[in-house]
């Protein structure tokens, strides 16, 4: 009896320690996750079944994204690549505009859209607005053939990451405006891939949470893309005195630890 209590007590201590040292909860700076999440975590560490259920749930989320971004081969076969691209954009709750047309085709919140876009056969897309949609790297396969794409808006897309930006080289001659603000998964390494977009004239990279040194990255991007106008708002670029002192201290500590490490190895 007392042994059971002792082991339960030890288990509680262990799980508490694990929770304290566990993951920071995605991008929010809350100190500890809500109660039901903590309970789920505790159960996951005790029972295989709970772990399996949680893993199925996360896999279901991934499968949903993959299904949305599947290759629309049937539509391509029956209606051609441009209609397939248009249908793909509308299915992901985006909007687009054809070359030579002035009105946009949008999907509303309930997922309904105007089927008149089928009337324009073999007209490439000129402007595409995919803000807050689930577009991902594999979904870009549907848009790859659009050689007259001039504007692409990816504001707030959760699945757009560095690999997606690297694949945008397929639009290197035509793309003039790109909006990647508020995308949580973009980091500095992906922005380096924008080198290939020779025709880019306007780039909006505001409020990217994945950037660690936004000020420096903006300057380097401006040097890399001299003909492009870069809009970067939503960053704290202030050079306050405390900030500079803190950074100097960290820099010195980093140097000392580097030197001592190298001495230890050699």
């Amino acid at each position, binding site marked *: 009896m*007392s*042994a059971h209590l002792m082991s339960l007590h030890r288990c509680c201590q262990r799980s508490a320690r694990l929770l304290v040292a566990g993951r920071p909860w995605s991008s929010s700076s809350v100190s500890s996750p809500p109660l039901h999440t903590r309970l789920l975590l505790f159960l996951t560490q005790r029972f295989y079944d709970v772990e399996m259920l949680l893993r199925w749930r*996360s896999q279901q989320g991934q499968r949903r994204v993959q299904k949305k971004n599947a290759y629309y081969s049937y539509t391509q076969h029956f209606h051609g690549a441009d209609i397939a691209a248009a249908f793909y954009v509308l299915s992901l709750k985006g909007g687009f505009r054809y070359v030579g047309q002035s009105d946009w085709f949008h999907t509303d919140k309930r997922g309904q859209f105007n089927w008149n876009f089928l009337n324009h056969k073999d007209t490439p897309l000129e402007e595409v607005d995919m803000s807050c949609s689930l577009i991902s790297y594999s979904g870009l396969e549907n848009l790859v053939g659009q050689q007259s794409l001039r504007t692409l808006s990816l504001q707030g897309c959760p699945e757009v990451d560095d690999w997606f930006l690297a694949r945008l*080289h397929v639009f290197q001659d035509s793309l003039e405006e790109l909006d990647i603000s508020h995308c949580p998964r973009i980091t*500095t390494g992906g922005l380096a*891939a924008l080198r*290939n977009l020779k025709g880019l004239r306007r780039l909006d990279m505001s409020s990217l949470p994945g950037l660690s040194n936004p000020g420096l990255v903006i300057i380097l991007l401006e040097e890399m893309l001299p003909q492009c106008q870069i809009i970067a708002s939503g960053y704290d670029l202030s050079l306050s005195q405390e900030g500079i002192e803190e950074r100097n201290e960290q820099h010195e500590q980093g140097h000392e630890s580097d030197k001592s490490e190298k001495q230890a*190895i050699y």
Partner: protein
Amino acid sequence: MLTWRRLHVKASAVHGLLTSRLVTEQHTWVHGHLPLCQSLSTGTPVRNDFFKDLEAQFAAARQKAADAMPGSSWSPIEINPNLPPERADIVIVGGGVVGWSIAYWLKQKERVRGALKVVVLEKDPTYAQASTVLSAGGIRQQFSLPENIHLSLASADFMRNINDYLGVLDEEPIDLQFNHSGYLFLASEDVAHIMEENYSTQRDAGAKVSLLSPTQLKEKFPWINTDGVVLASYGLENEGWFDPWTLLNAFRRKAMSMGVVQCCGEVTDFKYSVNRAMTTEGKSLDIRRIKSVKVQMPNSLEYQPVECAIVVNAAGAFSSKLAQILRVGSGAKNTFEGISLPVEPRKRFVYVFHCPDGPGLDTPFLVDYSGVYFRREGLGGNYITGASPEEEKEPDPGNLEVDHEFFMEKIWPNLAHRIPAFEKLKVRVETLSSSLVVFNLSGAADLKTKV
């Protein structure tokens, strides 16, 4: 009798018999008396000592009670917890990225959960001389063999979806810090035709590569001096560099969450059984089968023989040494047993330098036809450079000393010729490093840059 018990107490640190614990209490009690005799003049410190001792004794008594309960891990026989298990199905020798990747994929492919017991042995947990952590961390598809191109494309796919493969429930997502800047190969007159052939092979295999003429090259990268360059090959997608240490830790974390046992030790010997068989020509053949490997603990004479079915040699630059221990190649010449492992370690230098006016964010991993390469490191104007030495002047792989003269004579002139901004640079001596690279004697494949 009492003196024997006191000696016993000195030998055992934590685990001990009930009687020896009583002796420790008596020991501290005896010690507690001495300060009492010495410091009668001060009043309060004596009482603090007494209460601290009492607390320590209560804690010791609680620990003793917990150990005595069933379900505790106390045992009268002292077992070193760092020893590898006595029996394992597969022993992987080498804890670099290749070893842990093998462990992960073995566990991924097992049909029944927990069916395969995999042990990974790494002799140096600080990875001070491991090729994985000292490498430049680049990945490219610009090879001449289609097999290499397909392997590299599959690796890029893996890294793109790394969180689907190596994500552990409830841990942080993996950030490889992948820089998608591509590789840029420069060719002179005599090798331009090879580059064109390679370009068509790469395109056929599905790599996204583009060929650039000198004018296009100058337009794209104005900081390059296109003297002597006839053709350039630039990777548009799936090429760049990343942090190999993060990848290693991601593999390790996922493999350990799937039940792979990690152990720190070195393989020094092995036991095998021999079966004698007759070939169709009538010659007798000795078929040797490994029964167990002897794993030596670091800085200790302790060892553990691990019975295993399969031993995987993933020791990187030290794999030929392991093969010699396993007596691969010890048979007669001109027989199968006489073929030794054709892998040897080669030393390569990597220099970090700082140049304030150097090329910016778009710097690709540039490889010149003279063999010199460089890439950007971080955002502070630092670059990493190195070169493959000629066949005759290979440095001695016995130690990891860095040769500064190699930089001054072989690398800097070529670098300054290709990029004029690098005439003024400052080598960061404290971050020089040399690494041992696995060199495949048959095909000169540089495994350092292929992950």
